[in-house]
């Protein structure tokens, strides 16, 4: 099963990359872009047919590794 997860910085955490991308987009002339936040995207291949079980495992991995809970949030997307 393929499951993807996105990890983003919490709202109140500074996002230097997103900020810079936003600025560049503006400089390129796209005036109506008002904000950009950058995060990480993971595509995980898991050998587990049971959807619920897979979900639990990915949750666990997100918490323990893929995100730093102090500053980041994660979302898991099931296709």
């Amino acid at each position, binding site marked *: 099963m393929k499951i993807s997860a996105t990890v983003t910085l919490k709202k109140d*955490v500074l996002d*230097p990359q997103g900020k810079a991308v936003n600025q560049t987009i503006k400089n390129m002339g796209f005036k109506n872009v008002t904000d950009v936040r950058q995060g*990480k995207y993971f595509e995980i291949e898991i050998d587990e047919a049971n959807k619920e079980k897979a979900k639990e495992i990915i949750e666990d991995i997100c918490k323990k590794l893929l995100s730093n809970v102090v500053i980041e949030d994660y979302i898991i997307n099931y296709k």
Partner: protein
Amino acid sequence: MRSSVIVFPGSNCDRDVAVALEKFHIKNQMVWHNDTNLPKTDLVVLPGGFSYGDYLRTGCIASKSKIIDDVIRHAKKGGLILGICNGFQILIEAGLLPGILLRNIGLRFLSKNVFLKVVNTDNQFCLNYKNKDIIQLPIAHNEGNFFAKKELLKMLEDNNLIAFKYCNKNGEIEENSNPNGSSNNIAGVISEKKNILGMMPHPERLIDPLLSGEDGSILFTSLIKS
């Protein structure tokens, strides 16, 4: 004094710091990240470099290494721990120091000498800086932008847990001499028990007049001062 430098895959200042430790007669051992136990040691050093290529988040994967459990035990017993650059990032990911290190504000790797104000000399790492509180050390990092939320910043300031701040050559702590965007110009922090220091600048790179300075030496001589 005995020290252990932990070597992670991708560490690249492990030799440099070992050279510095030995120069100041600290008996050093290199310890592989995959070992479970530290040898008998007073000081644990997490060196600079790009452990695991800085992949995912800097210091994150290394903080899951086998040896880290024993490093945490060492910390709890009050043993000394020094994390330099990537070592600082690992300490944070391992939960041994608070805050987080984000990408430099300019989004560029920065390698240059910076001025630092020694803010706290009341710890084993900075004892000898007493009379010389504006120093110069090199930085070389991509993710040294120390970020802490308001409450944490206040806690660090109130409890005097900041070791170094970026400053100008006159010791003034101002925006223009903040190379990476760190909150309150913070370049290094110490743990509440003052036995752990994490810092972005590299003291081990300035221990020789030939290398245009010796401000780093003072940190090592502090360590051996009893």
